[in-house]
């Protein structure tokens, strides 16, 4: 290691590294400890485009179909077509030079290794790192198949790695701003008479009206305008829900009563004792308290990306919740539940005040393995309110 400075200096001579100042401390300090082979194997799992780093294993398209349905389809759709605002993984061919290109694995991603690596390290969302190598091979094979890039009898493995041709592998160029932009824009700027004609306003933010209001209310905007503006982009708007404060308000400020300017918090303050009463049906006789229902409706905005309730509610990436109080777990035949819910349902578990309260406080602890990517509600009042709202909205 003592030859490091020489190596660095050698590298500096023939490259752009010439301006680099070498650190004052040339000798190692002897800090840290040697990494063990087991530790390196556990963390160094990234895969290079040529397949370097792949573990042994294999996966075929049909196995991939099943594994994908289990782990991926709730967000990405059964056919990798994407649900709600979650990424589409298939299709989009020929769209890259059109308005709002659809950048999928098939139409855009240059390397299979990127898919394998990302699925292996970062998926499924809310439960990363649990897939076996064979499952990752199978999921990757299925995504390739969904893009018509391999046949239905294809088996992906280190041996078949080179057989996959990604259509957009040559679709990338290395940053050319130095020639295409800097050469032009590094110039003395104009100070007077800089336009041919006086400026006029072409477009206004108020034309689209997609800015969240500062009072914590929802974005009110025609869905069609949003879809036209953002549909299909990665910052896509295929849904409008939530409020500024529901997601963005720092916890510590929400906990400060004197800081409260939002309706939600004021309502919470108006009914501070309601949640403490953990009675099964506190509103059974008099009907639900409209203040609590309103508070619960606001809380539900955090759920509404994946769940619907009320008239005409349909399954989204999560099941519809009409009549959830008293409904057996995993009761909907047209929804594909996580395994843990199917098992609980078979065991006779029913959604009631107690089970819902426990589940909403810590979903992943109550239903280990749930695909629901929600950390849980911290406030007992929020939990109480949202349950009251679910019951009221189901009527």
């Amino acid at each position, binding site marked *: 290691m003592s030859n490091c400075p020489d190596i*660095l200096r050698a590298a500096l001579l023939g490259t752009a590294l010439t301006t680099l100042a070498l650190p004052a401390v040339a000798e190692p300090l002897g800090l840290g400890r040697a990494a063990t082979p087991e530790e390196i194997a556990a963390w160094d799992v990234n895969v290079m485009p040529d397949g370097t780093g792949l573990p042994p294993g294999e996966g075929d398209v049909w196995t991939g179909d099943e594994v994908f349905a289990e782990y991926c389809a709730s967000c990405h759709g059964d056919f990798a077509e994407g649900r709600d605002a979650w990424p589409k993984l298939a299709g989009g061919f020929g769209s890259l030079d059109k308005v709002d290109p659809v950048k999928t694995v098939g139409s855009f991603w240059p390397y299979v290794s990127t898919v394998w690596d990302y699925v292996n390290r970062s998926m499924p969302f809310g439960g990363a790192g649990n897939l076996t190598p064979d499952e990752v091979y199978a999921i990757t094979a299925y995504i390739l198949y969904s893009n018509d890039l391999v046949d239905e009898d294809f088996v992906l493995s280190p041996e078949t790695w080179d057989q996959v041709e990604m259509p957009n592998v040559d679709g990338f160029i290395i940053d050319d701003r130095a020639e295409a932009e800097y050469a032009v824009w590094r110039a003395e700027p104009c100070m007077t008479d800089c336009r041919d004609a006086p400026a006029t306003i072409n477009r206004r933010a108020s034309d689209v009206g997609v800015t969240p209001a500062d009072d914590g209310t929802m974005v009110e905007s025609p869905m069609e305008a949003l879809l036209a503006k953002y549909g299909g982009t990665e910052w896509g708007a295929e849904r409008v829900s939530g409020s500024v404060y529901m997601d963005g308000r720092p916890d510590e400020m929400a906990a400060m009563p004197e800081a409260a300017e939002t309706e939600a918090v004021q309502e919470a303050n108006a009914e501070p004792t309601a949640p403490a009463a953990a009675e099964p049906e506190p509103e059974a006789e008099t009907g639900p308290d409209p203040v609590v229902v309103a508070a619960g409706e606001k809380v539900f905005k955090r759920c509404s990306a994946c769940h619907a309730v009320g008239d005409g509610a349909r399954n989204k990436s999560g099941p519809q919740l009409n009549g959830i109080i008293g409904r057996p777990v995993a009761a909907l035949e047209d929804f594909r539940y996580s395994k843990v819910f199917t098992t609980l349902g078979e065991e006779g578990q029913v959604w009631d005040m107690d089970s819902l309260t426990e589940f909403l406080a810590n979903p992943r602890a109550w239903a280990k393995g749930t695909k629901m990517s929600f950390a849980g509600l911290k406030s007992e009042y929020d939990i109480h309110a949202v349950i009251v709202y679910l019951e009221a909205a189901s009527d």
Partner: protein
Amino acid sequence: MSDGNTTRRGVLRGALAGSAALAAGRAAAESDPLITELQDWTSFGGDPITARPYGLPIRFEADVIRRNVPWLTADPVSSINFTPIHALEGTITPQGCAFERHHSGAIELAKENYRLMINGLVDQPLVFSYADLERFPRENHVYFCECAANTGMEWAGAQLNGAQFTHGMLHNMEYTGIPMRTLLQEAGLGAAGDLADKWIYVEGADASSNGRSIPMEKALDDVLVAFKANGEALRKEHGYPVRLVVPGWEGNMWVKWLRRIEVTDGPVESREETSKYTDVLEDGTARKWTWVMDAKSVITSPSPQQPITHGHGPVVITGLAWSGHGKITRVDVSKDGGMTWETARLDRGSDPKALARFYLDTEWNGEPWLLQSRAMDETGYVQPTKAALREVRGENSVYHNNCIQTWAIAADGSAENVELS
């Protein structure tokens, strides 16, 4: 005591009522009871020193907070919020309102559970604890961090009405950290051979792991492995206990909860450097490795969330400018949509790859303004118009939109995000 009159808004409302008189010169005033009458706060004691072991902003500032745009992303666990740059001054961003971007949520990782591995083409793969890192020579530097998608929603037209939303994927902090080259030398780079074509691959400990490849030249230059920001520990949402700082380069590379550095013989071509954070051009090809954030500026006040409420007369136009190529050397301001420009005052100079604050101390008498700012950096680069950017890149790039921003100031002092002919 009346809370309504002591909020900032209340004061502004009161001032607005007297603005007509102000416009004609200094107004004669009736005596102000806030002065002539003894106020509670002047008479009674305030909070004891035990009230606030760690203080938050006073309640009157409760609107100076991060905000998000719910429709931007599918799930708030993998999403972004925005720094309230319209309401901040100076250049340092307080950690508590500095934007957050997570790909799998802000995780809780204790110092005693923290490990940093260096492996790959090094002489001795090493593991460091947090305590080990505190024993390396460390440095302090101020740098801006800008998400590559900042202003990305504005490519297709004027969309979001506020500097917070158009330009708030931005913060600027003083970092304490260890130069990456120090850690690489500790592991030894002899095994890497010629460094000119080598890379490092960095990844985080969260569920997204967010891996990025960085050329060795940059790694040996100014990349920091940081564990403090603005004098205190990193906040959970900014990567506590250790994050990467990649000065001047897009925020996605500033890996949070940094757990591994691998010396490699090529880029990994991870998801975040192929399918995301690449810029699709008009013909469908995409630029990759567009790491540097080019010079950019925005007027933070007046702006849609910070309208002119004080009536006619003196007004301070202020904003931020920054460049991933080095120092900001000049900022010009136009009031007529770019026909004529005047050079603003750069406050306190500028650190390289850090936010600079500019001011134009001027006068407004109700005339409509089309306010713009235009930054120049030490390479001579001039911030382009949106039209110039579109001419080169089309409208589908999403990332790296550093165009000149326009706020339309109306006769009533309100401001709106607009796009010009």
